[in-house]
Structures are given as structure tokens and as C-alpha cells.
């Protein structure tokens, strides 16, 4: 599951909800039962409509652009980077981000010698407090099954071919920690501002399946 459930999530679908949408398409039995539970729980006052709305908005609150800001800040500010690696919760709080209360965040740094890639084999644990909800592929059986045993071929599918000299560290976020990859700052970016740097930080590079973009906007392989 995209754990950080219900907290600090981001935009993921149609901005406006079409009230008609739910019966325009033929709903599965399961979908109908969800909508029934939704209406029953509000009718019975178990939860309020407002609470559900708040949770729904939280779900759309963050996007990978938020994680990218954190990474760019770490690239330009070595002291911030150290704090981020030592105590990610406190460091991202400095930038105005709060984490879901029941999961910690760990930031793992890619260097010229070590490359991290994150997976959750048991469900779909993901740093949603910073990146928003995970992409569908992150929750797929193929990604969950393959990444722990053949990370290099998974990354190759994403266009990243790593030399055998680079150590690949797969991180299976199996419990109460979410992992964010701090990618290596691309070469040739000395003159860029923090904002320009953030544009090079893709979602996939913070999961670790790719590197960030080059200053020309091309994926670095």
C-alpha cells in the first residue's frame, strides 16, 4: 500500500471530481462496496464528510517537485545535506514539509561508488510525504518481485546501465521507514540555481531507477 496512507499525498488524477463519473462507467462490485461504505460511514457519523475530504486533499498535496526541492537544497548546501542524511524528518521540516506521524524517513545518498534503488516487496511503502502517491509501476508485481533479485536489469529497463564497479544497494522498505534516494548531482551544473537544479531531479531518480537529468535535460545513463 502506498504507506503514508492518507497523509501528505498529492495530485494524481482529475482535478475536478465529476459526480456523474461513478455511474458513467460500469463499476465493479468492489467499487460499489467502497462507495457504499463511504456513504454508510458518513451517515452513521463514524467519520465526517470533512475528514474524508481532508484525507482526499492530503492525498493530492505533494508531488515529486517537493522531493526535488529537498534534493536541490542538499546539492547546494552541504550542511543541509548532512542534516538530511542524519535526521531527515528534522531537515525536511526546515523546508516546510512534515512527515506522516507513524513513518520515519531515511535519505540514502548515491555517490560515484554506490547506487541505491528502493522497492517495497511486501506492499508499496513509499515516501509519499515528499513525493505524493507512488506510480502504478512501483506497486506492480513485476517491480516488487524483480527489483530485489535483479536490480540491474530493472534499472536497464528504465534506461540506466550501471558499471560493475558501482555497488548497487537495493533498499526494501519493509517496515516503518520510507526511503528517498539523494541522487548524485549531475556534472556541468555548477552555474545553475537551486530552482534550475530542482528541474533536473525526476521522481524516478529519487526512487533510484534512473539518474537525474543532465543540464541539457537528457537522462544520464
Amino acid at each position, binding site marked *: *500500500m502506498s504507506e503514508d*496512507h*492518507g*497523509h501528505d*499525498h498529492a495530485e*494524481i*488524477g*482529475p482535478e475536478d*471530481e*465529476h459526480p456523474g*463519473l*461513478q*455511474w458513467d*462507467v460500469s*463499476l*465493479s*462490485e*468492489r*467499487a*460499489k*462496496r*467502497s462507495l*457504499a*461504505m*463511504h*456513504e*454508510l*460511514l458518513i451517515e452513521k457519523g*463514524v*467519520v*465526517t464528510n470533512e*475528514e*474524508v*475530504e*481532508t*484525507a*482526499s486533499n*492530503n*492525498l493530492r498535496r505533494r508531488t515529486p517537485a517537493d522531493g526535488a526541492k529537498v534534493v536541490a537544497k542538499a546539492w547546494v548546501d552541504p550542511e543541509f545535506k548532512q542534516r538530511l542524511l542524519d535526521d531527515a524528518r528534522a531537515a525536511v521540516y526546515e523546508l516546510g514539509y512534515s512527515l506522516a506521524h*507513524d513513518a520515519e524517513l531515511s535519505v540514502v545518498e548515491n555517490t560515484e561508488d554506490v547506487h541505491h534503488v528502493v*522497492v517495497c*516487496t*511486501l*506492499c*508499496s511503502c513509499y515516501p509519499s510525504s515528499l513525493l505524493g502517491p507512488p*506510480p*502504478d*509501476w512501483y506497486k*506492480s*508485481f*513485476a517491480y*516488487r*518481485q*524483480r527489483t*530485489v*533479485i535483479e536490480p540491474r536489469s*530493472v534499472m536497464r*529497463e*528504465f534506461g540506466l546501465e550501471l558499471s560493475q564497479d558501482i555497488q548497487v544497494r537495493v533498499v*526494501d522498505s519493509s517496515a516503518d521507514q520510507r526511503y528517498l534516494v539523494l541522487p548524485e548531482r549531475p556534472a556541468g551544473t555548477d552555474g545553475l540555481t537551486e530552482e534550475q537544479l530542482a528541474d533536473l531531479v525526476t521522481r524516478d531518480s529519487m526512487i533510484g531507477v534512473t539518474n537525474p537529468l543532465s543540464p541539457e535535460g537528457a537522462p544520464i545513463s
Partner: protein
Amino acid sequence: MPGVHDRGGWPTDEMIDRSDHIWTDWEYKTHALVGALRFRELMNTDELRRGIEAIPSEDYEASSYYERWSRSLETILTEKGVLSTEEIDTKVKELEGRWESDS
């Protein structure tokens, strides 16, 4: 034998499908309901996961992500007596009737 959710390293030739689906209203609502119930401390992540893991293998594999959440949500809520299966059945019929007359 590992549980159906405990999938790391299971052999597969499948490529990774990188397309994203468009979220539908009921998926948002399912996720948000779990969020609201967590806020009220009526349900926690561990219970949600346990409910998902209890889905029989064939169903687990055939279900979409939020179908699994929805099924777990129903398991946990009925188990705690917050809702009953019959109540949900009745409400589904009511909704179907309403959608019928609206369309």
C-alpha cells in the same frame, strides 16, 4: 511458503509496465476513508495490511490495488462491528437504484 504478498524474488519474465492509470472517484474515496479512519484511530496501517494479506491468493492477484484496500477495509470494519455485511449489501442496492433513476 511465503504469503501471496511476500513476493520479493518470485520468478517472472514480465517487463515493468510504466503506464499510469487515471484514478477514479471510488479509488480516491477508498484511500481517503482509510485516512479518515486512521485519523479517528479506528483503523491502523497494520490492520489494513493484515486484511490485504488475508485475501485468498487468486483474488489477491486478480484484484487491482484499491480493490485490495477496499476488501481489507470491509474485513476490518465488519470485524470491529462498525459496519455489517448486510448493511453494505443494502446500501449497494440503494446506490444502484439511485444511479438507475439518475441516468
